[in-house]
């Protein structure tokens, strides 16, 4: 009978515990939800920790306003400013502050661009969870958990150290994505995601706060304000310049702006509010083209805001040119440009912009006539089409069934028939497609097929499918149609609501 | 001894009391049987079996029961 502990026992016990810890880590990773849609907290964070040390000088923080509202890659490519965005959706100030501390730990942060939306928001546990549960354990994370515990809705501390206790019931909804999701990381560049949607429904009066009435009941959330003050203090101690901005959104109010102005005054911080006529004009942000939805900019708007901020940054500070450093990742830049081109195409809501975007050898277009286009056709639109390679005159065609295939001025196929017809063709890279032209049909649902997959348009007119023959992907599909309300041709893209 | 076996048979005729010396421990006789046995023994031998004596050891075998009865007769 063994009466005392001997070496083998100790080794066994230690080995068992080690394996247990490893397994626990893997199992927790699988069970934990991956927040990779929306503002992609998971990818944004993971990508950050892969960045080279001391390669970042500007931190972008705040809510989704800045995830979509600024392009850190553009700051780098066009201005040499090395920025990274750890803004995330509905980011509580404490989380932003945490990210700042993390960034300062491994990078040379000189400046912070901070969007102030969340100062007026009540906090919710789920928003904290996304940050806390995704972040790797560190001294700062420990600090954040302890701070967070002060909030009334904070959950039991052990669930932050052992997230499996909270998420284990997800076992019944696990998907492939839970096991490997790295290859889904295609849109996040230096923490920013550019939006490919252009809304045409932004109302200038709602957006611009200059003429708003003051509503005294709008006040900042105490807890958010508390951590904001701490963050300001931290920046002062670390000699980091803190710049406050407010990206344009229709739900921002003058009262809110006035409140932030007071804070900025108190701490002598620069504050740029893009909801004012002054800055909207100065930045050139166009309500017709540059907004994704009521509260966020799309890629066009983000780049304009980026340009404005870049000028300010360069005028007020010096930055190491990130384009000449070791940290410069050419592969990443290459993917960034492809993503950018695609999104400029996807946000083109006039035929002009579309044609500009289509001047690209990657994009091959299949066109099919499914509705009335001849009635209001004019020379201008005809000329634009011809830039793509179209040789048929739409006015003369008189809405006869028509299908064409083009690339950047080159014509691969063009046919018009008396009656409705279907064409089966191939793109120049061999991918098969099928298109049907039936302008007099009653079907609202018009479609095409590429590589066997159905594509819907939900509108009658001149349908375009744009296919990337280099990367084998459908990049865009839209309908050119005559918009009675506007008295001009417009681009329609079907969005599921 | 004869008397004892007869009394036991009256309590529960289906049990072979001589087959084991672990009648209680092996659950050959259960608590209901014991109650009947107690009643029969008390009546047959004019004794009072108090709670101190109602332990498995005293009922596990016919011999043990006989010893207990003798002791109580005194």
């Amino acid at each position: 009978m063994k009466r005392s502990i001997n070496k083998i026992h100790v080794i066994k016990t230690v080995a068992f515990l080690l394996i247990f810890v490893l397994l626990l880590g893997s199992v927790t990773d699988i069970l934990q939800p991956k927040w990779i849609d929306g503002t992609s907290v998971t990818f944004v964070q993971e990508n950050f920790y892969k960045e080279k040390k001391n390669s970042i000088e500007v931190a972008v923080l705040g809510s989704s306003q800045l995830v979509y509202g600024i392009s850190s890659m553009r700051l780098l490519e066009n201005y040499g400013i090395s920025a990274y965005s750890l803004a995330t959706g509905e980011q509580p100030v404490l989380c932003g502050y945490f990210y700042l501390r993390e960034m300062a730990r491994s990078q040379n942060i000189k400046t912070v661009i901070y969007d102030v939306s969340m100062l007026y928001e009540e906090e919710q546990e789920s928003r904290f969870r996304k940050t806390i549960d995704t972040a790797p354990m560190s001294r700062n994370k420990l600090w954040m958990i302890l701070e967070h515990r002060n909030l009334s809705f904070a959950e039991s501390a052990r669930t932050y150290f052992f997230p499996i206790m909270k998420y284990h019931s997800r076992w019944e909804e696990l998907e492939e994505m839970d096991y490997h999701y790295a290859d889904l990381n295609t849109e996040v560049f230096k923490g920013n995601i550019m939006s490919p949607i252009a809304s045409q429904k932004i109302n200038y009066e709602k957006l611009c706060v200059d003429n708003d009435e003051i509503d005294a009941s709008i006040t900042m959330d105490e807890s958010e304000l508390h951590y904001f003050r701490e963050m300001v203090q931290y920046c002062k101690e670390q000699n980091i310049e803190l710049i406050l901005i407010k990206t344009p959104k229709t739900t921002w109010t003058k009262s809110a702006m006035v409140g932030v102005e007071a804070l900025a005054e108190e701490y002598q911080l620069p504050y740029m509010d893009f909801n004012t006529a002054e800055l909207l004009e100065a930045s050139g942000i166009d309500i017709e083209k540059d907004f994704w939805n009521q509260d966020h900019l799309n890629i066009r708007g983000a780049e304009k805001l980026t340009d404005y901020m870049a000028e300010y940054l360069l005028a007020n500070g010096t930055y190491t040119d990130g384009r000449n450093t070791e940290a410069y990742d050419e592969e990443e830049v290459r993917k960034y440009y492809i993503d950018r081109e695609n999104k400029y195409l996807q946000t083109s809501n006039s035929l002009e912009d579309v044609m500009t975007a289509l001047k690209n050898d990657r994009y091959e277009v299949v066109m099919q006539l499914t509705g009335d286009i001849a009635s209001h056709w004019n020379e201008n639109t005809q000329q634009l089409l011809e830039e793509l390679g179209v040789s048929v005159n739409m006015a003369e065609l008189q809405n006869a069934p028509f299908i064409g295939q083009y690339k950047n001025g080159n014509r691969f196929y063009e046919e018009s028939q008396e009656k409705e017809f279907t064409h089966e063709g191939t793109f120049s890279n061999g991918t098969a497609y099928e298109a049907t032209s039936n302008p007099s049909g009653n079907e609202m649902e018009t479609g095409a097929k590429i590589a066997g997959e159905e594509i819907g348009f939900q509108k009658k007119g001149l349908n375009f499918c744009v296919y990337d023959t280099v990367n084998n992907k459908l990049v865009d599909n839209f309908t050119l149609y005559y918009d009675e309300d506007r008295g001009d041709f417009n681009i329609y893209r079907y969005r599921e609501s | 001894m004869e008397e004892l076996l007869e009394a036991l048979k009256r309590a529960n005729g289906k049990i072979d009391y001589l087959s084991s010396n672990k009648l209680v421990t092996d659950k050959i006789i259960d608590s209901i049987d014991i109650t009947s046995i107690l009643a029969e023994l008390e009546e047959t031998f004019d004794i009072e079996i108090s709670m101190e004596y109602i332990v498995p050891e005293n009922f596990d075998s016919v011999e043990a029961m006989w010893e207990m009865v003798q002791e109580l007769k005194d």
Partner: protein
Amino acid sequence: MTFIEMQFFVFLFAAAVIFYICPVKHRWKVLLGASIVFYAIAGIKYLPFILFTSFTVFLAGRKMGHIYEEMEQHLLEENLDRKAKKEIKEQAKNRCKKAMLAALLCNLLILIIVKFTKFAVNPINDLLTALGQEGNFSAAYIIVPLGISYYTFSCLSYLLDVYWKREEYENNYARFLLYAIYFPHILQGPIERYGRLGKRLKGEFLFDYDRVCAGLQLMVWGIFKKLVIADRINLFTTAVYEKGSQAEGLIYVFAFFLDVVYIYADFSGCMDIARGASQIFGVELDLNFNHPFASKSVTEFWRRWHMSLGSWFKDYVYYPISTSKFVKNVAKSCKKHLPDAVTRSIVTAIPVTVTWVATGLWHGTGVTYLAWGLYYAFMIFMSVSFGDLFHNLALKLKINTQCWSYKVFQMVRTTCIFAGGRLLTRPGTLGLSWHALKSALLQFNPWVLTDGTLYEFGLSRSNFNLMLVTVVLFGGISILQQKGSVRDMIAKQNLAVRWGIYFAAIFSILIFGIYGSGYDASSFVYMAY
């Protein structure tokens, strides 16, 4: 603190470390200290109760012990005749009786008051208002000390054992307190006798790596049974028995039998955690279950289910009543007028009824538990009185009572009787029980098995299926256990297999256990901000 809280594991680890650091002969004191700490954490206001009960019983036991010692001395010294000896014995017994009764009655009274006061809430409030005071006495004021049913019964067993001279009295209060308050068995038993547990607590506590591991493995199995099997089934049965649930017919049938598995998994799971924890310290606790569903009769069932309770009631209620003067007098008068068989039935019925009603009320207070007690009294009475009749009938009908399928029939029959008992107490009111039974018997709705209705009672489809899988696993392991210790079987395998099984068990608990506040996916949906 319950057995499945993190607090408990931290506590257990700390206690074990201190225990084994301590020199061997003082280790029992660590157990005592740990048990007192455990009890205090559960509720420091409960501590006086257990101290009072254990101390009064200890004092009574010591007094009786002294009296008996004196008596023995007396009997040896002088030359006495039989009559004198008898007198001395009677005197001693009477003196002891006083001490015993004092300790017995005041502690039983405490137990009864604590358990039944909630029924007095309304009358007391009425009285208070009648006296012009505010009637806001509520059940919240009643203190129910942790494990009071268990430790009271343990202490009383010692008291009576000393009184009936079956046990030596304990001279050291600290030792006795340890027996009463020993933390692994204070929550849910088993109810141990002083002669067994008391002795084991005086053993030599030596470290044994294999034994500690075995104890941990048993705890893991117990936690698995409770968190993965039992708590999952409970979600289903709770939803089925809820007021206003849409359950009908076969759903109730499912609930009846799953509920049986539930109570077995839950209770035996807790027992395993207790036994496993105790094994870490080298103290063996008695088994409380011995494959109860292999029982072929109700009486056998109660020798295999919650064995320590059945045995307690047998030794301290059933036998005393059936050998009491009252019952003997009844027997005498019956014998004069009635046939023997009838007399025997009546004479059996009295202690059986009293014992079972008491057992029912020990489990819980309320009409449902009273009904439960009477139900079992009736079942056992039937089994005892007519068991032979049925057996002879079966033989006459040429039914083979020795074959395997008949034995299965007996086991199923016993399980059904047990399910019937559960049906009296689980739903919450007798009205609900009746409704459930009626629906199960009168409504035949086999379509619920395939049209998805099964998944509308607290468990999603995946969870329901997982529940069935774990129930089958549980059954399989129970059957395997009849061949011998499963832990030993596993221990004989190679390291990779052993550790594979241990990790599988632990992670099954972490992943499939019903614990934690859960995760509401909808609250995480990103509202573009």
